[in-house]
């Protein structure tokens, strides 16, 4: 088995007295699509935010390419290697679609305007949003905004992209568009960790599914293991609600 891209070891995280993560361990390899599933409040999003250092865990380590990022000195550099797509899209409201994709390339990767624009247009094309490059980001529909957000994350060429419930804020018709884009990226070998409630997506696309409950990993395995032969009663109970 190849070297793990991300290795999460014994992560503990509390908010005040509430312990949200109680010792999480898992690995992500290059090219993996890891889906984190579980009910709300089980700690999935918090786990994801720990990987991006938006939350500082009290205990544990997160190794990326064998380097503990919790002790990392250059947080900004590290974050540029780990893209993130949010539930609420979070496109920059004061910029056009193109500028949204260009700004970080210029500020972080120090690319020239022209090069950054070409890169941005390439990825906007990939998510099917090239025609909207000069539109104001606030005029787009939710599904369109989320696709731009994916392109924006891709533009800085991260090694992995974290998706935090990317389709939860979308209406059902638009969910398909976004999932389609994500599927295509997965098939092209992009490493992803996806927090999602889209069980069908997890079933079809994931290389590994992790079921979290009350701050611990209850069960993990291939989609088949989890969806067709779940072992733990809690997993079975959770999945029954989706069938």
């Amino acid at each position, binding site marked *: 088995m190849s070297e793990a891209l991300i290795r999460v070891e014994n992560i503990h995280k509390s908010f005040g007295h509430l312990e949200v993560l109680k010792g999480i361990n898992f690995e992500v390899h290059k090219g993996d699509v890891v889906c984190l599933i579980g009910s709300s409040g089980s700690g999935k999003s918090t786990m994801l935010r720990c990987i991006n250092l938006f939350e500082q865990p009290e205990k544990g380590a997160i190794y990326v390419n064998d380097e503990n990022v919790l002790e990392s000195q250059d947080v900004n550099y590290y974050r540029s290697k780990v893209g993130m797509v949010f539930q609420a899209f979070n496109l920059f409201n004061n910029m056009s679609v193109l500028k949204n994709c260009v700004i970080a390339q210029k500020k972080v990767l120090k690319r020239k305007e022209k090069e950054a624009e070409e890169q941005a247009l390439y990825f906007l094309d990939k998510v099917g949003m090239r025609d909207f490059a000069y539109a104001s980001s*606030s005029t787009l529909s939710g599904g369109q905004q989320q696709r731009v957000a994916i392109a924006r994350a891709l533009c800085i060429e991260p090694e992995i992209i974290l998706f935090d419930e990317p389709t939860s804020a979308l209406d059902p018709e638009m969910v398909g568009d976004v999932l389609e884009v994500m599927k295509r990226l997965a098939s092209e070998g992009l490493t992803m960790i996806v927090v999602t409630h889209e069980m069908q997506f997890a079933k079809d696309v994931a290389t590994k599914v992790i079921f979290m409950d009350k701050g611990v990993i209850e069960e993990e395995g291939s989609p088949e293991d989890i969806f067709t032969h779940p072992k733990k009663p809690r997993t079975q109970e959770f999945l029954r609600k989706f069938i």
Partner: protein
Amino acid sequence: MFNQKFFATCIDIASKYHASLLLGVRVTIMVALTGTIIGLALGLLIGGTRAIKLDIQASSTSKTIKKIYDVIATVYIEIFRGTPMMVQGAFIYYALLHVFNWTPNVAGTFVISINTGAYMSEIIRGGIQSVDVGQVEAARSLGMSSMQTMFTVILPQAIKNAFPAIGNEFVVNIKDSSVLSIISMTDLMYQSSRIAGSTYHFTESYFVAACVYLVLTLTCSIILRHIEKRMNKVATSIPQSDTTTESQKIAPKSEKKQRVLPKRRKK
């Protein structure tokens, strides 16, 4: 009181003393404009830096420096918002008269600038708070530093959100610069007092002054509202605010967005 003779005297004063009135208007506008611009610059600097949150990973030295800076900024803001500008004007003018040897007009501009700076800091801080945290997280997730995030993503949106309040500050300065006539800054109020003193038509003179002030503030309000409308047109889906005073635009989508309601000052 408001009989024909009253208005005739008013018109008389306005035409006879229009030169000094216009001189006053010029000083008033200059002082208000300069004060607002310098105040805004101060506000951006102080409000912006005060709102920067240091990373958890930041060194303890920079955390201490930030803390001291925050205290100093707070003291400045509270002092200038908590005392009347009239008192500030008189005190600062005489206190620093021997240091700078300045004219009342320069001193007045100085006072109105730092006074406005205190209010602007709070307006900008409010504007920054009205920007969704998601914007910050998105920028940081792309690897942008807190400074880069502040200046390319947050402040442009904060200024836009706070624009009505910023414009309002200018209108307020047009009126409130009148208190600086106490240090004989030669603004409209000062000129009116002189006219009143030499004609003995006190009511009429101040009535004329009031009319001129009203024309000035109304014109500015209209211009500001126009600018605001045009700003909104650029980003089509942002709902428009109804007035320039205390109202705020709420940016699209995010329901969590707070309003920016800076405390209005009473002189």
